[in-house]
């Protein structure tokens, strides 16, 4: 059973300033690695109006992988997390 991975990225004003669109691009770039990793599921990237509940900016950028919230997210941690989930799945 292959599980799809859903990555949500918050695109509130603060999160866009802190690179939300660049994070979206990074996660989308992982689709190109699917064959290399032997992963047959889908990586879905969605943008969300507001994932966090605070607007003070201390938690931006906010993302969620399969519903699990990640605060102060950046490209490297989110990509690593997605890939580690894929690897578990492939085994």
């Amino acid at each position, binding site marked *: 059973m292959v599980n799809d991975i859903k990555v949500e990225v918050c695109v509130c*004003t603060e999160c866009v300033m802190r690179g939300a669109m660049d994070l979206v691009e990074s996660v989308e770039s992982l689709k190109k690695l699917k064959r290399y990793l032997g992963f047959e599921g889908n990586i879905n990237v969605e943008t969300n109006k507001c994932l966090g509940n605070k607007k003070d900016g201390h938690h931006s950028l906010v993302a969620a992988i399969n519903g699990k919230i990640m605060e102060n997210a950046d490209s490297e941690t989110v990509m690593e997390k997605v890939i580690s989930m894929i690897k578990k799945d492939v085994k």
Partner: protein
Amino acid sequence: MRGIYTPVTNIRRQVFAEVARLAYEGGEYARVEEIPFRIIPGEVPTYRDSIFLERAIVGERIRLAIGLPLYPADQPTHISKGVEESAIAEKVYEPPLINVIPFACNACKEKSVEVTDNCRGCLAHPCTSVCPVKAISIQNGRSVIDNEKCIRCGRCVDICPYHAIVKFDRPCAAACGVDAIESDHLGRAKINYDKCVSCGMCLVNCPFGAIADKSQLFQLIHAIKNGEDVIAEIAPAFVGQFGPLATPEKVKAALKLLGFSKVVEVAIGADLGAIEEAHHYIHKIASGEEPFLATSCCPAWSVMAKRDFPEVAPYVSDSLTPMVATARIIKNENPDSKVVFIGPCAAKKLEASRKSVRSDVDFVITFEELMGMFVAKGIEFGDIETNEVFDDATAAGRGYSVAGGVADAIANCVDELYPDSDIKIDRAEGLRECAKMLRIAKAGKRDGYLMEGMACPGGCVGGAGTMMSFAKASTAVKEFQNASEDKIATKSKYANKED
């Protein structure tokens, strides 16, 4: 590093947001001294050797964002010096626009070719065979380059089977198309302002974040707070810059929430310029009276063309740039207003400070700086509901923001207005490529041509003050063009008003 969010981007944007917040809150401006502590919290350095250095650099960035000069590193002073006096509703600007923060500069080596540890000291060592100046010798089993002899042609770099030889250049100097980056007495980058055209490519390409331009957002916010009639003219590259929720209509609504009384497309002026240049092309260039026509909309390109190629200078179009043409229309209808150009461009800040333009355009800010204002004001695009529409300009005018779009707009006008005539086009993006095109023109090989020059790779969507990769931005602009009812500049509703 466009389209990749790095710590450099992070700090730059936080500075804009904090300076905007400071201006909105008003009050005692001595508390500007607190901002570096908010941006660089704690006691442990994150980016450099010392947290004190990190904060000092942020301090310099704050000064530039307020429009103030850098403070001398060798004299006692405060970040807040001059801030109170700068809290006015008029532009504060003293050249230079683009500044190297000397103690943020890594003093990278100047251009060189180097052998790395990948060298295996192979038997073939083709590097020596291809070197035209005999600069490479084999010492202790590996290649060594004599930098006195080396002419940096790069042949050894290309031929090495282990990719062991690299051509090294300072990122700022590599990004500079007019070779304006020199060194100071400590080997740090220093801008030669006789050569610099303020395109801003060095500041977005420095991996140490050591270069920054001056901003006008502090004074702009004071003008709005003063209750003045402030009108925004927004460059067509804005589409998509503020995230997926920020549709063009919502950006317009958000600007009004910030206090702008009207929001006008700069593409109006682009439409008018395209029509004028189409006529000019047919009457002067196609007729053979003048050798060629160079576009004028990109200020960094036109300044370079006029200054470095005096033979070409008379043939750089004298049509008003879209920024100025649109500003004049606005001022004509609203004589007491203040006009703010919002765009992707650093060089426009300089253009707007020219004597002939000063009364037309009061402020210039970039998309990145505007984003700081949106964040400071807590504007959420997701919460905005609006009936605003954008219907000022044609698809052609909006296309000015992408490389090739200016020439296309003019060519389509020629087709429409003079169906029996043809137009020859050459174009270049990036100042180095632009200079190459001009050398070819100078040699008489572009007679009869329209030449489009764009200082930033990709066109305006690749400008220094943008928020996203130019590939995505170009797609967004394309959609905005498609949304325009009229496709050709001649259909502009402002075209007939001019006659």
